[in-house]
């Protein structure tokens, strides 16, 4: 029975429980609903929640645990070696699943009979061709163990699925029965329901904390694993990044950090003047109609997905910089470069700086401006000598937020900056960043026991710590500044 059906059945049980309890509550008062403690629908909701919520919680936990159990049993059937990695185990499970699905398909179409399968156990190699004749795709090579594993897989899956349906629906029925029995006119249904809803609300808020904990834990565990295999001094202080699969890799953070900071610096050098001057113009000079057109247009830049900027860097900005600046000056011949990525990233963060600064400039009290203008200063003098100094802490906060955004940005640098880890001052050379290396070490074939893969978690943790520090600092500054004028 599929999850969808179980869900629908549980909902149906809960709905019936709602109707029954509501009616029971009314009947117990012999038609005089004023004798009820709560409105009749609260008695219904009490039963609905008591029946559906525990059932769905169990269903959720079950769905998380089931693949683990199946994976373990299949791996046992396959007699994988003790030191097999998780990825190997997953691949084996996937193969077993593929065989099992193909066999089910063959059985349901009548191409094979139940008895035939035992026959194939003796000669597994013939299974593939037999299935192919029936136009059932099977890309894995069938071995006797795999056929065994496939049978273990299908029996475990069907057993667990049946068990899940029974348990979940059982819980729903028990919950409904328990709730209905408790209903009397004196039962304080509204209070109980409201308490239950409050628990659900709190549960939802706790998810934010759980996410943070999960982020930190997921990275800390693997990072510790990494530092067991690779000395931390080398990671933090080595100037070479040269991962070799098989052999001794050099995994130094510094070249990646250099690339990250260099690109972010160029991005900020592009975005801060443009963003700040647009914000000043929009806040202080622009007429209402100009503002109502230009501000949303600039903010469109913030809504464009980063992959679009990445493609823009790859097909337009990169070749443009290479053909018009880098090659004539003899500075390099690579389309992907620090300058490309920095420039495009700068365009991306213009709206962050301009809208935040705009808010902050608008928050500077008008009396300050009036005072300065009254003394005979021109508007630009007022802005430079009064408004900007007053807004400075907030603007610094905005720049820090933008910097954290630039450091954590991935797609632009993946497509625009290149993959060569080097420390160089030439902005027209390809360099790489922390985020690029996280992507390249974790995509494709990964082996979670090798330092070359695990280093990605250490890089991720480094990135997380850097951006978190910047964010907290920036939020602190912005918040402190806002309070000043409120």
């Amino acid at each position, binding site marked *: 029975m599929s999850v969808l059906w179980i869900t629908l059945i549980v909902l149906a049980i809960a709905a019936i429980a709602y109707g029954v309890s509501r009616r029971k509550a009314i009947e117990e008062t012999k038609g005089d609903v004023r004798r009820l403690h709560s409105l009749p629908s609260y008695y219904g909701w009490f039963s609905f929640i008591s029946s559906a919520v525990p059932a769905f919680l169990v269903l959720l936990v079950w769905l998380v645990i089931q693949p683990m159990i199946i994976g373990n049993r299949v791996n046992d059937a396959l007699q994988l070696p003790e030191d097999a990695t998780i990825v190997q185990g997953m691949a084996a499970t996937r193969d077993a699943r593929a065989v099992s699905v193909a066999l089910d398909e063959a059985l349901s179409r009548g191409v094979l009979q139940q008895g035939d399968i035992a026959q194939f156990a003796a000669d597994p190699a013939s299974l593939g061709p037999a299935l192919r004749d029936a136009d059932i795709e099977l890309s894995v090579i069938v071995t006797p163990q795999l056929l065994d594993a496939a049978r273990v897989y299908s029996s475990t899956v069907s057993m667990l699925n049946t068990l899940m349906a029974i348990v979940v629906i059982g819980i729903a029925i028990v919950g409904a029965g328990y709730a209905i029995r408790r209903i009397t006119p004196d039962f304080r249904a509204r209070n109980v329901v409201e308490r239950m809803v409050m628990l659900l609300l709190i549960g939802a808020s706790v998810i934010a904390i759980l996410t943070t904990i999960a982020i930190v834990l997921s990275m800390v565990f693997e990072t510790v694993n990494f530092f067991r295999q690779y000395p931390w001094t080398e990671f933090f202080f080595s100037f070479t990044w040269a991962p070799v699969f098989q052999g001794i890799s050099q995994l130094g953070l510094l070249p990646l950090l250099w690339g990250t900071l260099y690109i972010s610096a160029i991005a900020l050098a592009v975005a801060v003047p443009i963003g700040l001057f647009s914000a000043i113009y929009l806040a202080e000079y622009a007429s209402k109609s100009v503002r109502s057109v230009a501000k949303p247009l600039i903010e469109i830049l913030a809504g*464009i*997905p980063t992959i679009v900027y990445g493609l823009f860097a790859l097909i337009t900005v990169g070749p443009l910089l290479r053909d018009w600046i880098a090659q004539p000056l003899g500075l390099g011949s690579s389309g992907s470069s620090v300058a490309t990525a920095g420039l495009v990233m700068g365009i991306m963060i213009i709206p962050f700086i301009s809208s935040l600064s705009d808010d902050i400039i608008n928050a500077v009290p008008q009396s300050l401006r009036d005072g300065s203008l009254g003394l005979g200063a021109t508007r630009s003098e007022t802005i430079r000598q009064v408004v900007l100094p007053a807004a400075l802490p907030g603007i610094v906060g905005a720049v820090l937020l933008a910097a954290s955004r630039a450091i*954590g940005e991935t797609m632009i640098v993946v497509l625009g900056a290149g993959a060569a880890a080097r420390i160089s001052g030439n902005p027209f050379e390809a360099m790489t960043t922390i985020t690029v290396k996280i992507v390249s070490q974790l995509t494709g074939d990964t082996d979670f026991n090798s330092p070359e893969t695990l280093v990605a978690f250490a890089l991720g943790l480094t990135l997380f710590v850097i951006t978190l520090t910047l964010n907290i600092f920036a939020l602190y500054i912005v918040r402190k500044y806002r309070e000043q004028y409120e």
Partner: protein
Amino acid sequence: MTDISASPAGKSKGSSLLELDSRTRRRNAAERRFQIYGIVAIAIALAALLMLLVSIFSGGSSAFRQTFATFDMTLPAEQLDPEGNRDPAEMARVTTIGYQNVLRAGLVAAVRDAGIVPDGVADADITGILSPEAAADLRNRVLANPDLIGTTVDIDALVHGRIDGYFKGRVTMESAVRDANITPERLQIAEAMVENGLMSTRFNWGFVTKPDASDQRPEAAGLGVALLGSLYMMLVVLVLAVPIGVAASIYLEEFAPKNRFTDVIEVNISNLAAVPSIVFGILGLAIFINFAHLPQSAPIVGGLVLTLMTVPTIIISTRASLRAVPPSIRDAALGVGASRMQSVFHHVLPLAMPGILTGTIIGLAQALGETAPLLLIGMVAFVRDYPDAPPEGLFDPASALPVQVYNWTQRADPAFVERASGAIIVLLAFLLVMNAIAIILRRRFERRW
């Protein structure tokens, strides 16, 4: 403070008030310069936006058009259905190669009949203009409708990506000389076919509906699987992120006492909104795939990761719209005897609904364009099969729209760059629609208190 009558310093006697002195002129010039800086900054930002859009649209709009060879041919029964039973199961034994031979023969006959090639041209040059995918298309068409065998049918065959590129200006006669995949002769044949109406470039729905194709067949690559994958992920985000986000905001805004615990939650949410997206990808890989053993490249994992990313966005906008509902509404409800829960669910929440919806749509739009975390959970894999219908299909491998763009940029054939830009046009179209809906909702239902 009595000598107010002191003459203005620095101003020579006899100068007129109507004439600006040099210092005032300098200050006014500085004022004008400052304004110009502002205008220039805005102009640069808008020019960048324009350049970005022009570069994407000029490079990608051709992806929606594709060159097809159109001709009539009779499908020979003896080759395609040797048993003669019109039974799809038997006919499936004829492989794509068999169909390819039939199709090639039909094309050669059609071209030679039209008399547009001199006799000296080899058959291989004529058949070389077809895409390898064309035979597979024909096979699917015949297997779906076996009665076509033996009849004369209109063939609409995809032509080779290089020929398509020639009509779109990507391939030239000069580049064809150096290209192993195409020869100038084939281009000439193709041109002659266009003049005779045997070949045309027209709108191609396949780009939006078909699955991805291998490295050698850019002409057949489509967005079907990626669109479905993105749709599934958005469903997961909608089903999970909206209830969680709204529930959390209601608690934090309406009920939470001011204490250490709620402070921690608040700081957490504002920080989560600024965590780099790739970190969420690492989380997804470590927790959902390595720990919980959910399948790789599945929309459910992508959806869960995007949910975690979207929840803070939804919480922030929902709280803002809850805060905008004036306290008098709550007081009135409490005053007539409603419980706090009733005042929130019956009065505050409905009034905050438009704001919540707007925030939700904007959050979804962000999630739709997110790429980096999906790379880490294996959505870059090459997937040709459409996922099943949800909920089972949520666990099938699929791609996603932005990841498909990334995937295509990593391929060697330049025709994929055009496809990537085309995919971005589709992505931007979706974002535009979503944001337009959000703006309309806000305009229509926004209330000022």
